[in-house]
């Protein structure tokens, strides 16, 4: 293991190198660009073996990665915002085909109007795509989650694509210290991808992506849905195994409770949890429940962590337009619905388009929450 001080994007490229993909295929988009550029530099200096495809669009980036994984290779791509939106069609194909594609999304707001800063509208828009979604709070967690993502995706009990979400600019362009594991240890943790379920090999010809009539389509969708739900077990297991080998743990891999023995709980995803930890440290009435795994939604864990609270504040960086609230808020309300004495649940929509989420605003919100109505949606902008 070696401790380094680098820009987040550079750490990502090092982590990708450690995972030994056969193909790196990515199209540059702010704020993911430094990741693609760092990887290209590693390739130019002969430090990474992967084949590079300088694709002409994100659509082709994801399509080529799907092709490579179908041909039994490990592959990597990364994108943000509009790029992820352009990949939308392929995302559904990848999960439907049950191909363990792994991607980094440097979260950025969706147009229009065009905005390059961080929020979660891009990945939230893909929450039904059948991809596992894991959110990272800091660079160390990005590195560790990327390594875990390949292990989770390629597990025979899972065989699903995984997106590792890191906040654009906040994590991609910030310089932080972090530990990079040894190649030998990562090799031991990530055995070679050897599929039998969907393979492009002239020795055993298979047809991937056939045409399905209504009945089999319905049944296959149900199986996909179940596979995503069931993957929670493997996600937790990999989190534990990673901890044993590399010494770092992230809650139970699905959620993390930080000082959650208080009456109020605030929920966050991604880097804002760093801010929330600071808030919680200075208060005695509020704890943090961090959602690391958003898809599949860990309903049981969240229910257990939240049901005895007096107030639950869902702070999120996206809005489900037409629903009048954020998406996570709606889902939290749903999973607490049958609790006898449910907490008051309020929604704070924050950080859209990169708006700063300040400690004093969060504190003010928590103070105000005691007088707010259940179900209230607050657009948090100073």
């Amino acid at each position, binding site marked *: 293991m070696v401790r380094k001080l680098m820009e987040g994007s550079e750490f990502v490229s090092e982590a990708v190198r450690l995972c030994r993909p056969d193909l790196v295929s990515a199209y540059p988009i702010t704020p993911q660009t430094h990741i693609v550029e760092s990887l290209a530099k590693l390739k130019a200096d002969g430090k990474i073996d992967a084949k590079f495809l300088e694709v002409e669009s994100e659509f082709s980036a994801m399509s080529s990665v799907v092709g490579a994984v179908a041909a039994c290779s490990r592959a990597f791509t990364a994108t943000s915002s509009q790029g992820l939106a352009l990949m939308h069609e392929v995302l559904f194909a990848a999960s439907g*085909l049950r191909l363990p594609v792994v991607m980094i999304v440097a979260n950025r707001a969706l147009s229009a109007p065009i905005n390059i800063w961080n929020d979660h509208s891009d990945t939230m828009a893909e929450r039904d795509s059948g991809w596992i979604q894991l959110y990272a709070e800091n660079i160390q967690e990005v590195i560790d989650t990327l390594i875990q993502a390949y292990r989770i995706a390629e597990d025979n009990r899972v065989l699903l694509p995984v997106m590792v979400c890191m906040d654009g600019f906040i994590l991609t362009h910030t310089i932080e210290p972090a530990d990079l594991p040894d190649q030998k240890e990562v090799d031991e943790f990530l055995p070679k991808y050897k599929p039998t379920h969907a393979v492009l090999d002239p020795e055993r010809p298979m047809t*991937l*992506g*056939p045409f399905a009539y209504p009945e*089999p389509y319905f*049944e296959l969708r149900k199986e996909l849905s179940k596979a995503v739900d069931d993957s929670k077990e493997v996600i937790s297991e990999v989190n534990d195994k990673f901890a044993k080998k590399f010494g770092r743990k992230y809650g139970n891999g699905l959620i993390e409770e930080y000082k959650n023995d208080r009456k109020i709980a605030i929920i966050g995803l991604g880097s804002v949890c760093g801010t929330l930890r600071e808030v919680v440290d200075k208060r005695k009435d509020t704890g943090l429940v961090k959602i690391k795994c958003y898809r599949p939604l860990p309903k049981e864990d969240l229910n257990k962590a939240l049901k005895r609270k007096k107030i639950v504040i869902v702070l999120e960086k996206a809005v489900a337009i037409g629903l009048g609230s954020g998406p996570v808020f709606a889902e939290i309300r749903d999973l607490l619905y049958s609790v006898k004495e449910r907490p008051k649940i309020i929604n704070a929509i924050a950080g859209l388009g990169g708006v700063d989420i300040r400690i004093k605003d969060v504190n003010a919100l928590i103070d105000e929450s005691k007088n707010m109505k259940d179900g209230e949606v607050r657009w948090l902008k100073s």
Partner: protein
Amino acid sequence: MKKSKDKSKSKHTIGGTVKEPGSAKVLKTGVWRNFKPVVTEKCIGCGTCVLFCPEGCIKIVDKKAKIDYDYCKGCMICLVECPVKAIIKEREEK
């Protein structure tokens, strides 16, 4: 209805991948026909019909063209392309 004890048993492959190559042959497209091509003794076994059959259901057996009527859709390309006019058109007996 009695629930299956083994919940993990699915009648589908993971992701709908079809693992048996050429399994489409279970569909006997021959039932589509109203007319069928018939090879007469004029056939010289040149293989032109084999090459042009869109269904790939003609073979040369003992130097003569043999049509697999399980799959022949009755398009009559073989009749038109035969250089010695050895194929004739007959109504399908239903």
